[in-house]
């Protein structure tokens, strides 16, 4: 796990320098997204799972999307919109393969976690109290 720490450190420092040194602000935002993801892994190594999820959801999912919207607002009308040849035909197959690999990773993770999980006391508790109108909300 020390190797994972130093890998995350390298990603953090490199992407931070990428944020600061990029010419185009969109490249800075993408580097910052990678930075926050590596920081979430750091939080997971510090057993702060809630903070890791908060980091991904709020920072990478809301604040940086807001940054992207503002960059879009500020660069409207200051240059021609490039409309070169469509690259979709080239990117379709790698995208689908990546999606299938991501689904396989998630499924294997869920299967590993549910195999080692304790019995679901929460579900049984809900079923036991479902008939009591004073408990059910």
């Amino acid at each position, binding site marked *: 796990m020390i190797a994972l720490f130093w890998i995350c450190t390298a990603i953090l420092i490199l992407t931070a320098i990428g944020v600061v040194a990029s010419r185009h602000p969109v490249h800075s935002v993408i580097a910052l997204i990678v930075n926050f993801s590596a920081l979430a892994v*750091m939080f997971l190594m*510090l057993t702060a799972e809630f903070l890791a999820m908060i980091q991904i959801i709020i920072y990478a999912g809301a604040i940086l999307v807001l940054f992207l919207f503002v960059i879009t607002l500020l660069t409207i009308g200051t240059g021609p919109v490039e409309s070169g040849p469509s690259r979709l035909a080239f990117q379709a197959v790698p995208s689908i393969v990546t999606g299938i690999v991501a689904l396989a990773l998630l499924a294997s993770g869920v299967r590993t976690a549910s195999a080692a999980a304790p019995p679901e006391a929460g579900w049984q508790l809900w079923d036991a109290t479902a008939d009591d109108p004073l408990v059910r909300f």
Partner: protein
Amino acid sequence: MPGVPLADYLAVSSALFAVGVIGFLLRRNPITMLMAIELMWNAGNLAFAAFARSFVDFSGQIFVFIVVTVAAAEAAIALAIVVMVFRRRRDVDVDEISELRG
């Protein structure tokens, strides 16, 4: 994780903070400066979480939550100000904003 001392986490946090400070002072694009500020906030978050793990005190993680909230609100307001100030200008450069009338 056993084996990673607290000093290593603090070194990483300091390095991130230094990169953020240098970026904030060197760049002239206001959005990039705001992203450098976000880097500094996250460096502080990493230090808080490391101390929370090291001293087995949950207050560090609670303060990280507070910092994330403050950072979100401040980023929203700062971006709104940037949009308002730079809406009619061709180049976004904070050095151009040198008159403060009101």
